[in-house]
């Protein structure tokens, strides 16, 4: 099997898995316990908090553990909106945000908040300049993702953070795809809130964190016990948090080498596809791009067929076509970068990891070299195209 869907989830790191192991059968205490048996667990959780904080340039007491990226995004948007309600009810997001942000914003809209959805350019970039123009006196929050999950474009979040700071507006970034993959520094980038998920950097599923700048007011999202300094209730997911700490530390230690290695494989794939497969289009920014993201549209064909034939070749990939999104519209990200529906239906995302080899990359491209002509030979759109160009 060739796994090229690392933007969906990654394989757990062995080190992270081993770090978690004692916290199921041996150290199973609830860290809230007062007996000494619990202290090992609470120490492990606090150690993980430091591990996480270090990677993004935060302080440990600015890290709040959650159930993952979706919860963090929901908490950041809804919590900030509620806390800042007295100041204003205007929120700015981009058109290519993950559904966790997009739908949270839409939920707020139904409750009376005003949402500005910033358009992006053809590469999926939203500029700080455009954000500055959209900021109003009643704007309380700007939420722009650090890097896009589908097309891999890295947003200019340092510039956007600076603009938000200048205007006294909170800045949240959904950094689920970016944390431990590209350098991030919440202090230098003026980030007030940052969401992340462990399973995107070889940690376990079901755990993530929200960075909340010290002193920032944020309404709680989970009501209940006094965990996470009274801000996020729910019994602490000790094993998950420990696994996340180990995974983020490992990924961050190897980050520079990984970025070089993975982007070399990525660039090789992009170059081969562009050279060998006609009527294709690279989606996302060519250089300001996540190291592991390859995303193309192939004209005249639909994504699901590609995925099924890749699967038959043992290759796991994903697509933004309607059929794979479970709806009848292709991905909102592909439409936002200006692709017509029929082109967007033919998208393919191959997302790589440190483990992806050049040999696997070549095998995947070789497979595509057969699959795409095969699907085109069945396509009435291709038939018409060929006929009209004769």
């Amino acid at each position, binding site marked *: 099997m060739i796994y090229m869907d690392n933007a969906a989830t990654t394989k757990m790191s062995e080190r992270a898995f081993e770090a978690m192991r004692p916290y199921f059968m041996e150290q199973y205490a609830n860290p809230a316990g007062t007996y000494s048996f619990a202290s090992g667990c609470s120490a492990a959780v606090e150690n993980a908090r430091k591990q996480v904080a270090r990677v993004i340039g935060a302080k440990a007491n600015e890290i709040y553990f959650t159930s993952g990226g979706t919860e963090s995004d929901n908490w950041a948007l809804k919590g900030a909106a509620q806390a800042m309600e007295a100041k204003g009810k205007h929120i700015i997001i981009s058109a290519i945000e993950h559904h966790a942000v997009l739908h949270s914003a839409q939920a707020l809209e139904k409750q009376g908040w005003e949402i500005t959805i910033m358009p992006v350019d053809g590469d999926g970039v939203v500029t700080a300049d455009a954000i500055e123009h959209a900021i109003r006196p009643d704007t309380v929050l700007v939420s722009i993702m650090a890097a896009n999950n589908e097309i891999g474009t890295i947003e200019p979040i340092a510039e956007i953070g600076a603009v938000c700071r200048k205007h006294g507006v909170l800045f949240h970034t959904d950094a689920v795809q970016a944390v431990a993959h590209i350098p991030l520094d919440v202090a230098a980038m003026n980030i007030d809130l940052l969401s992340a998920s462990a399973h995107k950097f070889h940690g376990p599923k079901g755990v993530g964190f929200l960075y909340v700048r010290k002193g920032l007011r944020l309404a709680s999202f989970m009501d209940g016990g006094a965990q996470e300094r009274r801000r996020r209730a729910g019994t602490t997911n000790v094993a998950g948090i420990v696994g996340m700490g180990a995974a983020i530390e490992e990924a961050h230690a190897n980050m520079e080498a990984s970025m070089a290695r993975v982007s070399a494989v990525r660039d090789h794939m992009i170059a081969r596809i562009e050279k060998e497969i006609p009527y294709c289009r690279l989606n996302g920014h060519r250089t300001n791009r996540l190291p592991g993201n390859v995303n193309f549209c192939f004209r*005249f*064909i*639909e*994504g*699901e*067929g590609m995925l*099924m*034939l890749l699967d*038959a070749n043992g290759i796991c990939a994903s697509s933004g*076509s*309607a*059929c794979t*999104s*479970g*709806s*009848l519209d*292709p991905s909102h990200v592909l439409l936002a970068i200006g692709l*017509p*529906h*029929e082109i967007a*239906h033919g998208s393919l995302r191959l997302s790589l990891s440190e483990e992806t080899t050049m040999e696997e990359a070549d095998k995947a491209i070789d497979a595509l070299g057969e699959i795409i002509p095969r699907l085109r*030979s*069945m*396509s*009435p*759109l*291709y*038939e018409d195209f060929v006929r009209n160009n004769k």
Partner: protein
Amino acid sequence: MYTEKVMDHFMHPRNVGEIENASGVGTVGNAKCGDIMRIYLDIDENQVVRDAKFKTFGCGAAIATSSMATELIIGKTVQEALTVSNKAVMEALGGLPPVKVHCSLLAEQAVNAALWDYAKKNNITIEGLKPPVDDVDELHDHEDEDEE
């Protein structure tokens, strides 16, 4: 998510291609929605479908339903071919996931459109044949999605 039959017809589609000087050709669907089917019919003087070919832009289910629809109509009279419903195509495939039912409707419409073209070209009437639906998009229950 797909039955073995669907997978078989997707991996090894029957009757892919074009027919030159076809007796009837029908194209339905639109690229915006992500599926287009074109069916070519070769119909003999006894009004029997001698051959059928298809070209489809669409998902795995769209390709499989096109393939199955052509199989079901070959050898049938135009009158019989007209009665091959989307249900018959679905049953022959061992079922389709609910979100893919529209693919089978598209296959039924494509056959219908090809028969319409044949009838028009030959100036004949086929009982029960209706003009092709202009906007097959309407067949998609956009309002009836499971999502959201």
